[in-house]
């Protein structure tokens, strides 16, 4: 880039300089030749008087190297014109040219017509004079000027080149400095920003976009870091419980019943851990861009019916009715694994928080290319200070930590994670004492072409796990 800008400046500026030098050369040459011509014409005009007066060999009185030839009207060469220059007529130049001599020198030769009269009473007669003067002085001067101008052209080129290089480097320095700053940024230094105000105005939008991107990445990384820290905490507590329980139990000889009890307790903790790991894996899977490749045209109604049947088993324990409010044969583009996880999680949640003998409504419709799902319960509702936090991972409304009650605190987080990865959204409305409605909107159109071609074996495998993963979600 620097070289390209420098070369562009160099060639354009140098071309201007060279053209200027050529113009100077020709203008100077023209002026010098004109001066010489004028001097030659003066000398030629003075010739009649000169040679007329002098009776001797005329060449003796001419400047050295000058020579001439005079012809009369008839074209005869005459040695000496008779008369003096007519006062009325001025000499008219017929021809001017350079004549090369055998010895390498050059002459400037001018042919002009003069009207002469011998005396006042005699008629005018025309004479043609060819007057030549050596052009050595002019040639030398022009030669020297050519050398000088060539030197100026070359030196100017070098100078322009240096300046152009410097200017282009200076112009690109902010870009380089920006690149240096960007080069230092890694996942631990995402709080760094490019100095947009120091950049030329053309580069500022780029720097601002870059800073916006960094801010987004910083937020995203902070969220992930928090999620990871929370996950570590959630995994450590059951592990600590298992470890301590087994260590304390093994410290002394125990009866078979006590040992069996220790094993049972540890087993239930391990099962909790397994569910936690499954849920975390599901979350990680929903985050992958490849998940989009799973989008296919499916019978949404059949899938919802399947989810509702799974939830019926859970609901029957509390005598809760799951009311299906969706048309049959509803077909749309969706990701079956993620959609099933969303619906089963929402239903399990609703059943859990429903009053005994209550009902849970599952509705679904297709509108404007969007799949609109809702799950409504008539439970106690969610208080307004808890509501903004319920989609946070591991959040528990009662302020407790850890999963000692068997709840992972990941269900709603997973739902939102799935919805987001499909380009949709999930929101909740809740009234204390009346219940809550969770609404999920998902795009129901085929994915952009090109994506659909990238299905790989792993994802195909994941799609066949629909029932398996939704069973995990039910427990979550």
């Amino acid at each position, binding site marked *: 880039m620097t070289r390209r800008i420098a070369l562009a400046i160099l060639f354009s500026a140098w071309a201007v300089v060279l053209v200027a030098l050529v113009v100077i050369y020709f203008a100077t040459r023209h002026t010098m030749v004109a001066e010489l011509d004028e001097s030659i014409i003066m000398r030629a005009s003075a010739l009649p008087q000169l040679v007329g007066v002098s009776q001797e060999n005329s060449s003796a009185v001419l400047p050295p190297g000058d020579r001439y030839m005079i012809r009369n009207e008839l074209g005869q060469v005459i040695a000496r014109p008779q008369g003096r220059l007519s006062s009325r007529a001025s000499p008219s130049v017929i021809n001017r040219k350079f004549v090369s001599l055998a010895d390498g020198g050059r002459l400037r030769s001018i042919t002009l017509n003069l009207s002469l009269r011998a005396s006042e009473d005699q008629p005018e007669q025309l004479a043609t004079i060819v007057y030549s003067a050596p052009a050595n002085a002019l040639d030398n001067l022009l030669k020297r000027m050519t050398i000088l101008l060539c030197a100026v052209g070359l030196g100017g080129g070098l100078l322009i080149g240096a300046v152009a290089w410097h200017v282009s480097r200076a112009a690109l320095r902010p870009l380089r400095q920006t690149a240096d700053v960007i080069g230092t940024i890694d996942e631990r230094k995402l709080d760094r920003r490019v100095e947009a105000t120091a950049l030329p105005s053309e580069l500022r939008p780029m720097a601002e976009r870059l800073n916006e991107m960094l801010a987004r990445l910083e937020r995203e990384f902070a969220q992930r870091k928090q999620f990871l820290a929370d996950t570590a905490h959630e995994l450590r*507590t059951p*592990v*600590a419980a298992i*470890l*301590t*329980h087994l260590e*304390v139990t093994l410290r002394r000889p125990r009866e078979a019943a006590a040992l069996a009890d220790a094993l049972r307790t540890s087993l239930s903790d391990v099962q909790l851990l397994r569910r936690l790991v499954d849920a975390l894996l599901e979350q990680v899977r929903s985050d992958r861009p490849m998940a989009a490749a799973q989008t296919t045209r499916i019978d949404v109604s059949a899938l919802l019916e399947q989810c509702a049947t799974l939830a019926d088993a859970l609901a029957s324990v509390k005598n809760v009715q799951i009311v299906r409010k969706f048309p049959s044969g509803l077909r749309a583009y969706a990701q079956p694994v993620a959609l099933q996880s969303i619906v089963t999680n929402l239903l399990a949640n609703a059943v859990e928080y429903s009053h005994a003998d209550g009902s849970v409504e599952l509705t679904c419709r297709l509108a404007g290319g969007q799949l609109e799902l809702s799950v409504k319960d008539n439970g106690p509702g969610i208080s307004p200070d808890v509501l903004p936090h319920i989609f946070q991972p591991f959040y528990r409304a009662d302020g407790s*930590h850890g999963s000692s009650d068997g709840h992972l605190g990941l269900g709603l987080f997973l739902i939102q994670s799935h919805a987001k990865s499909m380009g949709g959204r999930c929101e909740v409305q809740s009234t204390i004492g009346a219940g809550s409605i969770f609404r999920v909107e998902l795009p129901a159109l085929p994915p952009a072409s090109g994506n659909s071609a990238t299905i790989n074996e792993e994802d195909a495998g994941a799609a066949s796990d629909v029932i398996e993963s939704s069973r995990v979600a039910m427990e979550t």
Partner: protein
Amino acid sequence: MKLLVAEDHAKLARSIATGLREEGYSVDLTFDGTEAAHLLASNQYDCVILDIMLPGKEGWAVLDETRQRGNRAPVLCLTARDAPEDRVRGLDLGADDYLIKPFDWDELLARVRALIRRAHGQASVVIRIGDLEINTLSKTVRRGSSAITLSAREYALLHYLALRAGQVVSRTDVWEHLYDQEEELSSNVVDVYIGYLRSKIDKPFDVKLIHTRRGHGYMLAAAGGNES
């Protein structure tokens, strides 16, 4: 020695309490921060095992409140968060030690022993009073060249008296430090156990180590002082 275990994960808390009781400590157990603060305000504990993420009141708040009240009971913070800033915060708020979940059971026991020792200005695991030698690690007692066998309760009482050797220890102190809320004991249990200890430690020997201060309590000391 009486310990408080405040941990909201019920299974973990019960395991810790069981393990500690089997080591001869009396243990109060709570799953809630508010109750932990309340117990700390009304009891004298020799060591507190405090989870940071407690419902009701966070461990930080419990710790801060306890130290503000001038309670100097050694506190071992138990947490699944291992970020350095969490440790620094805990130690700055007056925690004496820090243990990350999951932990090694032997390490927890060693740290509890060390905290109790340090709180009583005791650097070594072996306490010597005259020719009486108490090894707090192996829980064995010798006097001169003869080994003395003690029951768990007798050992606990001797250990407590030894930690406060040279000081008069009231019956209430003994009661407070040796028996937890789950036990129902008669009011003269302290005197009964002092009697047992005397018969094993002092009776066979000329120099008596356990002294009674009428109206005040008991004292374990090499030089008798004013016996009454």
